[in-house]
């Protein structure tokens, strides 16, 4: 057993850490307050090769692996969770399925520029009535010659307001249930692709998401990803990878909160000593660090399995479940350690507390992760 990063992985992690420290951390509070998508910072992150970390270089990616990707997302999210998820969606939910299921013609158009970070992708699975129950797709795609006519609604589409293309899921045969789900990749400037206003959320306010209507959207058949009926399988296997990104994002948020709490505890005095000297605070810090360490190990293990081509559904779900819940416990304790100061928007910890909450909801709620894990256990 060997738990050590390669030179390349370490280098990427350190580069991302430096970038986050310089470009993201000093600005994240302002982006959050202004609900502003930091296009420029995301562009700089793309220049570092963070558009498609694990995509081979011949397809425009950085040619690294999922472990490196997880390390990068943690570092970026430590600086700004919104930028973290923007990148995670582009890598895991857009580039990954196009790389895995796309043909060369599709990859040429929808992988290269997106992995290079010249364009941004999004992922359209969730619908108003199909959140946890993703199989309940109501968006329909009806074949008309060499085209499909798509109608329906997708909501909470992260990157939706800024994306150039979407990997989206539709029903081509309602009678077949999950076997009637079909995936497409579509440019967002296609007529019939209609964006609603940006969502107002509790946190990750610099990551824009929105509802999207497909109003007689015409999609040429060659833009279908995989065969008709492959969609559910594509969605589920994509999420196995996506959950690694969200776990890493959660750890990044948790680490930011932890580090701020640790530093604050050394400065703030009560009863004549720094609060770091009170056992109540010491034990909170000990638990926070332990949980983050465990979450990181679960996440890197899932990432390593993906890199080895092993089935990692259960491991990704465990990583995502544990990391997201740990991040919330850590952020809550970090705010508590800051006391009244932590409740104020002056401190970053208030934002971490709000940002952490989403990691237990998107890309499968904690309940769905438990469902996935217990299904795997009982099979």
């Amino acid at each position, binding site marked *: 057993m060997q738990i050590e990063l390669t030179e390349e992985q370490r280098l990427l992690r350190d580069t991302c850490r430096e970038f986050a420290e310089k470009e993201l951390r000093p600005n994240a509070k302002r982006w959050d307050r202004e609900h502003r998508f930091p296009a420029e910072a995301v562009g700089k992150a793309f220049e570092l090769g963070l558009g498609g970390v694990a995509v081979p270089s011949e397809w425009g990616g950085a040619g690294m692996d999922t472990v490196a990707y997880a390390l990068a997302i943690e570092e970026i999210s430590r600086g700004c969770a919104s930028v973290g998820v923007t990148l995670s969606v582009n890598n895991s939910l857009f580039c990954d399925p196009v790389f895995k299921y796309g043909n060369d013609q599709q990859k040429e158009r929808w992988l290269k520029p997106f992995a290079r970070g010249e364009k941004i992708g999004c992922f359209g699975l*969730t619908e108003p*009535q199909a*959140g*946890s*129950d993703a*199989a*309940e797709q109501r968006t329909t795609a009806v074949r008309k010659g060499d085209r499909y006519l798509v109608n329906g609604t997708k*909501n*909470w589409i992260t990157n939706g307001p800024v994306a150039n293309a979407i990997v989206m899921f539709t029903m081509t045969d309602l009678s077949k249930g999950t076997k009637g789900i079909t995936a497409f990749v579509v440019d967002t400037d296609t007529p019939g692709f209609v964006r609603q206003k940006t*969502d*107002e*959320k*509790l*946190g990750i306010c610099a990551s824009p998401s929105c509802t999207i209507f497909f109003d007689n959207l015409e999609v040429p058949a060659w833009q279908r990803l995989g065969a008709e009926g492959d969609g559910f399988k594509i969605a589920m296997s994509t999420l196995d990878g996506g959950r690694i990104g969200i776990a890493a994002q959660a750890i990044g948020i948790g680490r930011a909160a932890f580090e701020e709490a640790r530093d604050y505890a050394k400065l703030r*005095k*009560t*009863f*004549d000593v720094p609060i770091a000297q009170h056992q*109540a605070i010491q034990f909170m810090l000990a638990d926070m660090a332990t949980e983050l360490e465990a979450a990181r190990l679960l996440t890197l293990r899932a990432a390593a399995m993906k890199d080895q081509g092993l089935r990692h559904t259960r491991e990704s779900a465990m990583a995502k479940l544990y990391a997201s819940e740990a991040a*919330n416990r850590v952020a*809550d304790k970090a*705010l*508590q350690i800051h*006391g*009244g100061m*932590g*409740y*104020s*928007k*002056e401190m970053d910890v*208030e934002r971490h*507390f*709000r940002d952490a*909450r*989403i990691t*237990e*909801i*998107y890309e499968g*709620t*904690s*309940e769905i992760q*438990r469902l996935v894990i217990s299904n795997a256990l009982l099979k």
Partner: protein
Amino acid sequence: MDFALTDEQQRLVETARKFTKEKIIPVAQRLDEHGTFPKEICEQAWEIGLMNAEIPQEYGGLGLSTLDHVLMAEEINYGCAGIGTTLLGNNLAAMPLILAGTEDQKKKFCGSLTEAPIFAAYACSEPDAGSDVAGMRTAVRKVGQEYVMTGQKRWITNARFASWYTVFGRIGDVRDRHKGITCFVVPRDLPGVSVGKKEDKLGQRASDTSDVLFEEVKLGKEHLVGEEGQGFKIAMKTFDRSRPWIAAGACGIMRRALDECRRYALERKAFGQAIAQFQAIQFMLAEMAMKYEATRLLMWKASWSIGQGKLDAIESSYAKAFGADSAMAVATDAVQIFGGYGYTKEYPVEKLMRDAKLLQIYEGTSQIQRMVIARNLLAQGQ
């Protein structure tokens, strides 16, 4: 042993519930969004007797017991904890006067709250003295028969709108810790009193939280509450009386979360059935209900004890700590039950979660409650 409410209490609850439904719930989201102080709502609440609950009748107040008060406060907090906190602010400012003030002070200052819908604020915390009350630095110099106060108070509820403040300052050296801390009632219009920056908060955004500054403020004997050096004791006694109110905030938030979640769980479908049919959701709802019920009982017990005159700090702290921690857990689960919808501002549960967090911080953090509890427990063992 009897847990039934009297007819009078029942009527009080109904009045508060109706007011909450008609006046608070429709505007709570908007006030939160813009951080707007609920002045009009407070005026209306004052009009029908939902403010200044514990001010004795001889000073024009309602003279309600703590139990009556928490029953009413739970209803208000069901609608909006930010408004709940605003209404509590006056009671908190008045409590040191009720406990230790002179007849004149009670008539003048407590009476002023009942004569018109005005606000008062309790000013104890400082930038460097939150949990550690005895570490406060606001200095009071004695000059002949007068006192001169200089200092800065932080996180003061209602500060910006208050006509007077109950302020704790220190006569003597900061190394004397709790000795020397003295309580004063300070009219807003005295020279040297000003309001500083307003906090931009995570939650309870309708409630005003601001700094109050005192610069060489000249005070007389008529402003001294209790005796010199009694301030720390007065502050602690006030907290013993006020902590059940925070448990009422917790009860309001939890009952709201439970109602919202029950309705949503019965409507929302996944995997071909209402999510209420899933054990994972059922167990969350069961936890929520247990936590609400247990908090309410702790709050009733602490409030009843206060009414019996056998106040025990430990009971108020049980109710406050258990209630605040429970409300945080319940509101967090409420967001989870609502899933993606819970994370958006379209539904009320994300606000419940933001609002709940403050309950674990103000009027003594959850950590301070545990210190109070442990200290009492260990003293009993000696």
